[in-house]
């Protein structure tokens, strides 16, 4: 229920408009007076972001220290390789439960509830969590409590004591999200769109089910911990500390650990979606959520800077082709955005999404598809390329304008094995991207016939129907939630929602 939202935002609130009859070519007359162009833009103040100090211990563990004395806090994290993509599919949900129960269970010396009482009284936090490729312990506190909080976090990192009670609590929480996962249209669309790209039971898409979550035991949590804790830990500490003392403390804590075990590199390959049109019926909505999906790439790919410029032209901002066409000119979509994404160590997805009222589903989808196809058929202009580069490069500064952002970036690069100066190199490559480069990558990566289209919406309201898209027979996706203990076909075997 984070969404007790009463604010309405303009930005998320992209398009709309029904009066398609009013469509006219955009004004071509030149604008006479542009007073804003006469406003001087002075040279930017000199700025060299402060880099954290990096220390590689003999056992392979890496420490980062980022001093920041503005506020009286110290915070830190230990990142541990291995996440949900590495879990056994029969135990899907393991890393999620581990991330919760690790902290709520606590240690042999102090259980999780006692830890809560102690920390909250100091406005301090220690939390654990897991995502697709890693797990982590994080802490933060006022400066005066930093030593004690660090010791507790270290104890939790190295000597957790998983409790059956807290595992059960985590299982209940997870079961609640599972039975609720079809309540919100947006969640369905995001999840099922990714499954079309990566396959339904792949490392990035398999979903926890009541049965897989129910099968997880305390021994599983412990085994996961033992399996991952010996990996290459990355420790990042930032805030108001004395650097010599902090370095000594971190060395004392981590130098004695055994040499880290290397993690075999992943070689994820994906075929991408089966092209076509897919549909999920949801009776209680009056707006369709359309996802046009395919395979993306990873950041090692040298085409990434040119692709970033292409993305900006396609769906990056108010001036992007998707926005201008589908929202501003046609007025067919409400929210329209997307592009080809890059992950650090595996192929990400291509994704364009459009939200539109049920009746305009087909028109909006066609318009968005038209802009995607247009990347290879409608030549880019120098104006478009310049604008896209300006948009990206002028705000590039916001990637490193705080010391915490610089530290987080360095931890990420270390984790995925990228050079420390990746951001600078990337910025320099972006500056060099030409119109010809963008044209080349568009032709290389944009193949509309390989994309899948997913529509989540209210079937009876979608007129004209999805067959009008001429993408072949409409394939309906069953998102019923499997209920353990019932035979398939039996009443209640699946909570069919529509």
């Amino acid at each position, binding site marked *: 229920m984070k969404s007790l*939202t*009463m604010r309405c935002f303009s930005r998320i609130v992209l398009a*709309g408009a029904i009066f398609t009859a009013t469509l006219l070519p955009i004004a071509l007359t030149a604008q006479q007076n542009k007073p804003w162009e006469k406003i001087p833009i002075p040279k930017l103040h000199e700025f060299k972001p402060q880099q954290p100090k990096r220390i590689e211990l003999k056992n392979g563990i890496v420490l980062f220290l980022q001093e920041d004395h503005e506020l009286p806090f110290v915070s830190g994290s230990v990142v541990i390789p291995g996440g949900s993509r590495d879990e056994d599919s029969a135990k899907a949900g393991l890393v999620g439960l581990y991330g919760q129960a690790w902290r709520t269970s606590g240690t042999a010396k102090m259980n999780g509830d006692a830890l809560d009482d102690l920390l909250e009284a100091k406005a301090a936090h220690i939390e654990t969590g897991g995502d697709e490729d890693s797990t982590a312990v994080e802490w933060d506190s006022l400066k005066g409590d930093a030593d004690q909080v660090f010791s507790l976090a270290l104890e939790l990192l190295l000597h957790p004591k998983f409790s059956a009670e807290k595992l059960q609590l985590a299982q209940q929480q997870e079961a*609640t999200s599972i039975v609720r996962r079809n309540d919100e249209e947006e969640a369905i669309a995001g999840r099922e769109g990714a499954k079309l790209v990566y396959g339904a039971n792949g490392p990035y898409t398999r979903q926890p089910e009541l049965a897989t979550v129910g099968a997880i035991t305390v021994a599983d949590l412990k085994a996961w911990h033992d399996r991952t804790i010996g990996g290459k830990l990355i420790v990042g500490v930032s805030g108001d500390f004395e650097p010599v003392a902090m370095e000594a403390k971190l060395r004392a804590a981590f130098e004695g650990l055994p040499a880290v075990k290397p993690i075999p590199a992943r070689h994820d390959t994906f075929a991408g979606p089966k092209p076509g049109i897919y549909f999920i019926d949801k009776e209680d909505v009056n707006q369709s959520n359309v996802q046009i999906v395919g395979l993306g790439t990873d950041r090692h790919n040298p085409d990434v800077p040119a692709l970033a410029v292409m993305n900006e032209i396609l769906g990056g901002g108010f001036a992007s082709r998707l926005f201008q066409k589908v929202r501003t000119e046609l007025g067919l979509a409400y929210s329209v955005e997307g592009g080809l994404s890059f992950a650090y160590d595996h192929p990400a997805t291509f994704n364009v999404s459009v939200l539109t009222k049920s009746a305009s589903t087909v028109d909006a989808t066609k318009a968005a598809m038209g802009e995607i196809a247009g990347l290879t058929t409608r030549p880019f202009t120098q104006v478009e390329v310049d604008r896209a580069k*300006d948009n990206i490069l002028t705000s590039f500064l916001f990637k490193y304008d705080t010391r915490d952002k610089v530290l987080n970036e360095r931890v990420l690069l270390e984790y995925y094995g990228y050079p420390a100066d990746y951001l600078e190199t990337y910025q320099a490559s972006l500056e060099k991207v030409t119109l010809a480069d963008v044209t080349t990558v568009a032709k290389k990566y944009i193949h509309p016939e390989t994309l899948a289209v997913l529509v989540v919406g209210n079937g009876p309201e979608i007129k004209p129907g999805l067959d009008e898209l001429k993408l072949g027979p409409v394939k309906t996706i069953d998102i019923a939630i499997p209920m353990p203990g019932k035979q398939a076909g039996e009443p209640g075997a699946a909570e069919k929602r529509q």
Partner: protein
Amino acid sequence: MQSRIRTAAFLLGLAVVGIAFAGAPAQDLKSFEQRITTKVLPNGLTLLICERPDAPVFSYATFVDAGDVNDPMGQSGLAHMFEHLAFKGTSQIGTTDYAAEKVALAKVEAANDAYEAEYLKPVGRDEKKLIELKKIFLQAQAEAHKFVIPNQFTDIAERNGAEGLNAGTGLDDTMFFWSMPENRLELWAYLESSRLADTVPREFYKERDVVIEERRMRTDSNPEGRLFEQFVATAYVAHNYGRSNIGWPSEVSQITATEAMAFHKKYYVGSNIVVAVVGDVKASEAMPMLEKYFSKVPGGPRPEEMTTVEPKQFAEKTVAIHEVTQPIYLEGYHRPDYRDPDDAVYDAISDILSNGRVSRLYRSLVRDQQIAAGAEGVSPYPGDKYPGLFVFYAVPLPGHTPQEMRDSIHKEIDKLKASDVTDDELAMYKTRTRADLLRGLADNQGLANDLAEYQTRYGDWRELFLQLDRVDKVTKADIRRVANQVFVAGNRTEAWIETEAPAAAAGKDGGAQ
């Protein structure tokens, strides 16, 4: 800033610096006194600059003391509509020929009036004439569109590095904000002052449909959206807090550009606006420049205060929605506005009941009874400027009902009324509040938003720090007194979703459409 509750809770919670952490650099009121400069311009607009020169960037927040609570009767959603218009450019930005466009826009307005007059005829509506009038209306829009350079305002901002460019309309107020490299300060001042002073009702009727799409997403197609809309509409009988701030469909769909511009004229006057800038900006150099630009905003009298006061509730009310989605339970009790002497007491109650795994509701409903995935009591909702609600909610685990949530929440409320909270609980609230205030100071945008909000609500940004006093003075007796006063059945509205089997839902139109 994404939720009124969060903002308001933060607002309540802030307040506390100086004592425990005095002496640290840049962290107390004294250091802010040295870094903050304010100036009230002759038109009444307040400028505030906070120098924070760590990186060559700045963030700003424009805080307009008008929101959807100010929408006139029959025009719910108007303030939000106007906020959308503020991205459409000015007489200089977004047009090829403003003089001609202005004439064309007047024709659009006349055509819309003619169409609406026919459309709203109670008897004798001429359907053929209606089609003809619609055609004329669309044609007039097409003519006006010829002069439009689409999205030029945002294009200039984005090309110059605007980050996090957005705006938000709440019931209480409207905010515009983004961050930029510091060498674009003057360009920003030009853009922001122009759109405040010189708004043009460009592409208004297209944008109106955008907003209706937004309603479809947030409310009609979202189970929680439907529940909350019905909940506040039931809790309030007189005050505009009971009105959906995105607007009722029939009303948003008939708002006119003339009405939006009238709203602008009345509420977007200098005395109703605070602009805060935080970052690598030198006040001595920037203030004269900002003054030059923001003096363009019209003066004019501060809008009159609202007279409606929600009458005392004396009947317990309930809303039950039966649909195929999973169950949720919530209930709300009327409480006073942010100026009430007990404001911090409500914050203390919320913190003790809801903040983290040590909170009473978590420990009771989630950890011990194991009936809920989450449970909280937060306030105020849906706004803080006028008397809002203290809202409790719980998300049942599979197999548990909204009624169990209600009974367990009531038990926790009864405890609060019957016995004092512990010394540790009260101390924890004060410590966490103080630390949260400090943590919030690290972010330019967050700080700009808070400074602008406090300057508006209290007439002095220093209240951000000075509220410490009120937080420190909260006693155990205050908490008991307020709980006994407010958490009573006659002051309560309950609302829940009860899951209905899909078969029974067949043929129904699905929820609260």
